[in-house]
Structures are given as C-alpha cells and as structure tokens.
C-alpha cells in the first residue's frame, strides 16, 4: 500500500489533497509528476509551502516517475501521486504500468472547449479520448473530490452530458 492515491487535479497540491486526502490516508509524501515543475526550483518551493510540516514533496518528470514507480510501490512509506492533467497520467500509464490501479479525478476546471460534468470536473473531447485510452491501459478511473464525497465511476461520467 505505498502509493495510496493516484490523482488528477489541476491545482496540484492544495487543501483538499493535503488536509482532505493526506490526513484521511495518513500520507508521508506527495509526488508531483510534472515535466514543467521538475526542473523549476522556485515553483517547487511554492507548492512545498502548502504541505503540512510532516509531509514531504517530491517533484519528478514522467520519465523519472516511470523508473521509480516500482520502488515507491514496494516501500512502506505512504504517498499520493499527483498529475495536473489526464495526458500526464496517460503517459505515466503507458505500457500497462498502472494496470488495475485506481485513479481519482479530483479537479479539472473550466477551460475553452470543456463542458461541466461535475462541479469540480469539466471535460472536453480530447479529455474523453484520454479517459478512454486510460481505461484501455487497464486503469480504473473514477471521480471524487474529497474522501467523504460520493465516488462517481467512469461510465457514469461519460454518460452524463
């Protein structure tokens, strides 16, 4: 049980993740998989300032994450893995690395071409194609913003709207 949550959230590290999920799942670190953040020291410091004192922040590229995933999964240290969009999660999942893992959709907000599916989830056509590709890669996708909320399965998300 070393990576206790895979989540897609365009806000990355924020209150719902740190306090909501982090406390609920008793998490030791949050790994942000993002090619733009991994080389940017000053931005990492910003996101670290939003973590609780006992949580560590790790910032890696997709490539690095694919290399280290097995090690993270085998370790007793508990972590949340975050990406800011579905594309990044799909690149991580390529080759069946995330086969039969649960991926949580926690926040994709309004943008041109996207339509509202849930209050915290807006999807465009490209997003729907990526979701289908994730499902083909064996990933079990569902949406839930905070631990106490209802979990909405992928099929229901794609049928609605």
């Amino acid at each position, binding site marked *: 049980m070393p990576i206790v949550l895979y989540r897609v959230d365009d*806000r990355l590290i*924020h209150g719902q993740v740190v306090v909501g999920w982090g406390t609920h799942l008793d998490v030791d670190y949050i790994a942000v998989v993002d090619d733009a953040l991994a080389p940017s020291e*000053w931005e990492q410091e910003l996101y*670290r300032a939003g973590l609780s004192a006992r949580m560590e922040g790790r910032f890696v590229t997709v490539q690095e994450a694919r290399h280290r995933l097995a090690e993270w999964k085998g370790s007793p240290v508990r972590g949340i893995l975050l990406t800011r969009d579905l594309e990044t999660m799909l690149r991580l999942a390529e080759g069946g690395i995330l086969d039969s893992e649960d991926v949580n959709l926690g926040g994709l907000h309004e943008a041109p071409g996207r339509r509202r599916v849930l209050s915290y989830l807006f999807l465009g056509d490209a997003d729907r194609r990526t979701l289908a590709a994730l499902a083909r890669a064996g990933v079990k996708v569902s949406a839930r913003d905070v631990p106490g909320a209802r979990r909405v399965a992928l099929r229901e998300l794609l049928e609605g709207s």
Partner: protein
Amino acid sequence: MVLRSLAVQGSWNYRTLLGGGFAFSLLPVLRRRYRGEPEALRAAVGRHAEYFNAHPYLAPVALGAVAHVELAGADPAVVSRLKAGLVSPLGTLGDRLMWARWRPLCALVAIGSFFAGLPWWAAVALFLGTYNALHFGLRLWGMRLGWLEGLNVGRALGRSVVRRVPDRLTLPLVASAAAVLPLLAVALVRGFELPPPLVLGAAVAAAGLRWPTWVGRAATGVIVGSGLLGTLLGAAQ
C-alpha cells in the same frame, strides 16, 4: 497597494474568485510598467483579472511578489505560473492561522474578559483590536515579504513564522475554550451576573492546561464539572 488590497474580494465571483480585485490592487504597478503603452496595459490588466485565489489577508504576499517580477520585466507566462503556485499555500496558511486559530482565540479572550469584569464595550474593543492587529500586520508583512523575495517567495513562505504560529496557538485556544465555554453555558442559563470565584476557577483551569499532568487535568475536570453543575442548578431554578 496595501490599501487597495483591502478591496481584493470586492469583485469576488465563482469563476475568477479574487481575479478582479487582484488586477485592481496591482493597477499602480501595471501603470508603471506599461507607461505610454495603453494596449499593453489593457492586456496586462486582463491577464491579472483572470482566476486567482488566496486567503484575503495573505493576498498581499502575491501582490508584492507579482509587483516585483512585473517591474523586473518578467515574461507573462512566468508571472501566471507564480500566481498559480501561490494559490495553495496562501489559502492553507491563511485559513489555519486566521479562521481556525486567531479569530476564535480573540473571541474567547474577549468573552472571558467580559466575565472577568470588563465592561461590554471594552470587551468588544478588545476583540476588534487584537483581531485586526494581526490582520493588518499580516497584510503589511505579506506585502513586504512578497516584494523583497519575488520569485523566491515560496522558500521564504516555507520558512516563515506564519507556517509555525498556528501550532503554537493551539494550546492557548484549547485553554481559553476550556475556561470560557462553561462560563458561557452558565451565563446563558443563569443570567450574566457570574460569581467571581467561578470566573477565577475557570482562569486557573485554563492555566492548568499548560501542564499536561494530573494537575491540569484535574483543574479542567473541576471547571467543566462546575460548569455543568451551574447549568443544572440554573435549569432547576
């Protein structure tokens, strides 16, 4: 800009949250960077009016940092990444410090001081004074921190006292709640003329929480018990 930041929630809405207020607060800086370029100024105001969120009292941290990088001629893409990264820490730090600790603490201390004999107007003034001392202090501190640090504001925030203070306020908050809430319960049932020994007992019990030993626990037990007893007696009358 600190004065303008008082209006940072002035155009709050569900799509851009603090966006409009942020652009308004930043206007003097943008006018300076884009002097004589009205088109560029309009575009800059537009991009700063987009989605932004923070605790209102900590929004000046973002204003200061953005002012710093704007006047250094930063690329708009970098500026928007800076703002995106500030949303989470400024929200979390502000909520923990002000809503979860400082506001209830100030309110409890003010109510306690009323029971201890302060006239009502002085207790109200005490609440407004202590609460707003930190509120305005935070705005000025934040603006200065952001302005001095620019892009490095994240590291400064991570090390700042604002991150550590909420944990230190937990004990005073619990102590004042333990002292004041039973008194409030008694007062609501029996009327607001409380016997002085009860008030003194409550203060001692609260102080007792400083020591995590049986002394503190016994004192807390006594005051909670006396509060309940008072409530029961009051209800029986």
